[in-house]
């Protein structure tokens, strides 16, 4: 079978322009999608961080409440004696 393939310069340039146009459109779409996703993910991370900060605020408020509690007024008695722990366990278990 005889195969003859010939293109004029105009057709070749037209084809290249077409391909470049498609590539350009794809690039724009990719960049826009990338930017949108970046912003969306970033905002999502910040939202999560803010939610964690709210929980941390609750934790610190709980610590402050615990510190401010007068346990004698709550009916608890002071210990008669205190024995503090040793530096290392007496057993081999750590």
């Amino acid at each position: 079978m005889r195969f003859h393939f010939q293109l004029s310069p105009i057709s070749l340039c037209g084809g290249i322009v077409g391909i470049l146009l498609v590539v350009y459109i794809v690039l724009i779409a990719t960049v826009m999608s990338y930017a949108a996703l970046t912003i969306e993910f970033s905002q999502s991370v910040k939202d999560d961080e803010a939610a964690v900060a709210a929980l941390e605020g609750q934790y610190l408020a709980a610590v402050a409440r615990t510190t401010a509690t007068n346990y004698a007024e709550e009916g608890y008695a002071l210990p008669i004696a205190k024995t503090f722990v040793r530096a290392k366990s007496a057993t081999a278990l750590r």
Partner: protein
Amino acid sequence: MRAQFRSRILLILIFLIFAALGIIVRLYFVQIVNGEEYSLKADRQFSANSGGLFDRGSIYFTRKDGSLISAATLSTGFLVAINPQVLADPEAVYRAITDVASTTVSRDAFMSASAKKGQVYIEVAHRLSEEEGRALSAKSIPGVQVLRERWRTYPGGSLAAQTIGIVSYGTGDTLAGRTGLEAIYDGTLSRSEDSLYKNFFAELFSNVGNLLVNAEDAREGDVVTSIEPDVQTRLASNVEKLSIRYSSKESGGIIMDPSTGAIIAIASYPTYDGNNLHSVDPALLGNPFVEHVYEFGSIMKPITMTAGLDAGVITPATAYNDTGCITVNTYKICNWDGKARGTTPMRQVIMQSLNLGASWIADQIGQKKFREYFTGLFGEKTGVDLPNETGALLGNLSKPQQVGYDTAAFGQGIAVTPIQMIRALGAVANDGYMVQPHLASAVRLNSGIERKLDWGEKVRIFSATSTHETIAMMNALNDEILYGGKAKIPTMSVAVKTGTAQLTKQGGGYYDDRFFHSFVGFFPSYNPRFIILLYTNDPKGVQYASETLDVAFLDLVHFLIDYYEVPPDRGFDSAQQ
């Protein structure tokens, strides 16, 4: 065949041209015809056109188990802006906003803003929650924009507020750290505005290097401090209680690891809530630990004692003749009670806090050597990572009059910052080595790398022997004198010293009835894990520091022993082991 191929190429070209035309037409409609509508929609989704969303790194507390708790971070929500030119019914819009927003919106301010028809953008409410913002946005009120907003938040409120610092607008329109760690680490915490919106392909073609090794990622990050939130809360609570109880002008406390200089807690009163700066006295925004100098009084005596022992001019067995009062360069110096003790051993200088004993040691050391010790300890700023650190006032040690040295020996006539004082006393606790106090222990870079901060070499000031001899005296003070001997913990040695200094008058001289109280202690005495410095300025109705600060100090000691499970260093017989 060729004609057939050409016709196909032609068809493809025609298709591409139509496709391009379609896109151009679509772009025309998107950008020109419906441009304003899309712009408003984008605004609602993201941020105001005037600038990007506020972004900034976090500052963390570090719990004893190493977990991090935010000291300063970001909150997200929404702001409400109006366009007075589009707003049809301001009264109805105001009702719609206040129906969903818990944030107080002043009616007068809103009506005033809506009357400004020459403007197109006025922010009328801030810090709406996620739910409130979305609810208001869903109403799609013409002329009302609901925009994403971020702001700095401090989950601990007033916890270590003066040390963490604040973010605010300065002379320009840029939010930046202005005080505390926010200011000193602003370069690490601040974020470049383009980081989110950069064009990937533009970066790829114009700045390949940045994609591989981003300079900003190597610089920007979060700051991790050594402040422990539970200890900080306890210290702040104690400082507040004593300040209120004695109506003091101000009070403060620092807890530090004397071997590393890591500050575990630092609290002062009065203070402020970093989340609510509207009614804060600007004077409170500064940090008294580095910006104020005080005459600390008798907590200077352990330093004088150690200097005398280190210089070899005294030993623990040395005695001096205590006459109750002496006159030096026409100035009269007396013991706190004015009473003479006769022949007195060195141990009693610390135990009974004898001014004459401290002055006598200064005489024995000599001016040159005494100056060397004190300038070695206080002559330079500590370099702590807080802004606006000031230096000590040591002018009396540059003069030939001996009275300046004699009074400096018991902490009067020279003024130092609290951070300098705890560093100097830390040298006594730390076998004679002076370390650099610091708050930040590491920086967590955006690249994911955690960079530990190096806080310099230790500087030897005293010999270990001299410090141990002084510690024995401070230990005896805790076990035998403090709180009538009840302060003694059988299983833990604690070294302490109290200080009561007369306050200076504006025109010179000292008040007879106004005092500055200070208290220092560390434990376990010979291998301390914590050194605690407390002070209260001008407490009312009380004269001595042993009356004001011992309760707070002992509470902190017991709390720290329990919280960190500090093992006993004495009084634990072998049968129990």
